[in-house]
């Protein structure tokens, strides 16, 4: 059993990192969005191996909708919606590679070199029950704050994207934005 979960852990880990890289390598925007989702699913799998079953599944559940929206936004807002043509759109590429590698090395060094207390989850604990009690018990205020923040964000997002102004449709009579590139 331990061997199986070890193998699964390494499979999911490699899958998470490789699919994460593929997001920025692939030429198709729908593929990019769903590679990212594959990365999330792999991390969800790791969370399930770590006994955080509920969190892993919720992560997978959330990402299905979010990545679908992302794929559609990619198709809507990219200048080249055909999607299977080369699509490398990068700037400050070398700096970014150095920054990414630097972040990885620094964080991995912290993970490998720092001393963390070795206190695993004791057997017999049901993490889902624990989480539920915590969310609606001692930490209810934090949970509620997250809920209120989400509500505020929802209102803000609707205000940002809504076309309807105070006196009806805001863009009445105006033109839709064209797909042509505007002059720099």
């Amino acid at each position, binding site marked *: 059993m331990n061997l199986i979960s070890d193998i699964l852990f390494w499979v999911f880990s490699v899958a998470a990192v490789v699919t994460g890289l593929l997001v920025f390598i692939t030429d198709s925007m*729908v*593929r990019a969005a769903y590679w990212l*989702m594959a990365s999330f699913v792999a991390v969800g799998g790791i969370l399930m191996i770590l006994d955080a*079953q509920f969190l892993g599944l919720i992560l997978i559940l959330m990402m299905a*909708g979010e990545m679908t929206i992302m794929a559609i936004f990619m198709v809507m807002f990219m200048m080249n919606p055909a999607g299977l043509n080369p699509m490398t759109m990068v700037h400050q590429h070398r700096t970014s590679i150095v920054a990414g590698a630097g972040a990885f090395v620094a964080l991995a060094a912290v993970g490998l070199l720092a001393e963390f207390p070795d206190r695993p989850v004791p057997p017999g604990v049901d993490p*889902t029950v624990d989480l539920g009690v915590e969310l609606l018990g001692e930490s209810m205020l934090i949970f509620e704050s997250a809920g209120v923040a989400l509500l505020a964000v929802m209102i803000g997002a609707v205000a940002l994207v809504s076309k309807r102004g105070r006196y009806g449709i805001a863009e009445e009579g105006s033109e839709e934005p064209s797909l042509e590139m505007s002059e720099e």
Partner: protein
Amino acid sequence: MNPLVAVVLIGVVMVVSVYLVAVIDTAVETRVSGGRGYARAWLAPISRAARLALQRRTVTERPDAEAWVLGPALLGGLAAVALTSIPFAPGVDVADIPAGIVLFGAALLQVMVAVVLHGWGANSVFPLLGAFRMAAVGLSMGIPFSLVLITTAIPAESLSVGAIIASQEGVWNVLRQPIGLPVYLITALGFSFWGPLQLPDGADLAGGTSAEISGTALLVWRIARASILVSLAAMGAAAFLGGYLGPWLPGWLWMIVKTMGLAALMIWSGHRIARARMESVVLLGWTVLLPVALVDVFVSGALTL
């Protein structure tokens, strides 16, 4: 459960139930169109499948081939994953894990991904429109779907499907939470894109995401879609109708009867109710089903207290 036994069990369940769905579909079609001779309902699905298996496959210009193939395979795989969380009889389950109902919900919400990939892969207009429709239907149906499903866990005080069935020993959830089952069935139609909500690959889009496929690809796509319908019906039976609980008959038979009853209801709706329009579906999801599902959560929570 032994992994090999589990694979065989899920495989057998899927094959038998998909065949039954096809038979019911043909029988209902015969009944509704005033025809006679139900005997052909048993053979018609097989001949249809054979015809599709022999048909020539069409291809489009520069498809996203991997995504196109992955769509149907993922859809069928998700149906299998969803079925693993459901106990078919006392003790007969593949993975009745503590968060089983969340596993089911996660698998079903990924249906969106499978359908969008399938529509995107064809590199053609109608399939892409079908993919957009699936995203719209899935996003407006997803929250009420998850809410009514998770509400059934409140009386059970557990997210495991086995515990949810066990909690319905005295009274089924369909009586305890009368709002739950109708909302669940409507959203289930959306996620299996069946009947009045057959929008992503409906006839009004010339087949939508399946407009550009034929032959074995179409056969696999239809089988996967039917197995999603079956897994939704099975969860409906387990979460609202007491699953394998029931007098006289053995548990597994009750489970089959209830699952196929719900599946037949959804199939029947496809032959009797006109296809809904996109606007009304999105409006229904956000302005009717979502508040109603919230009422369901609050009322059953209050009753459990």
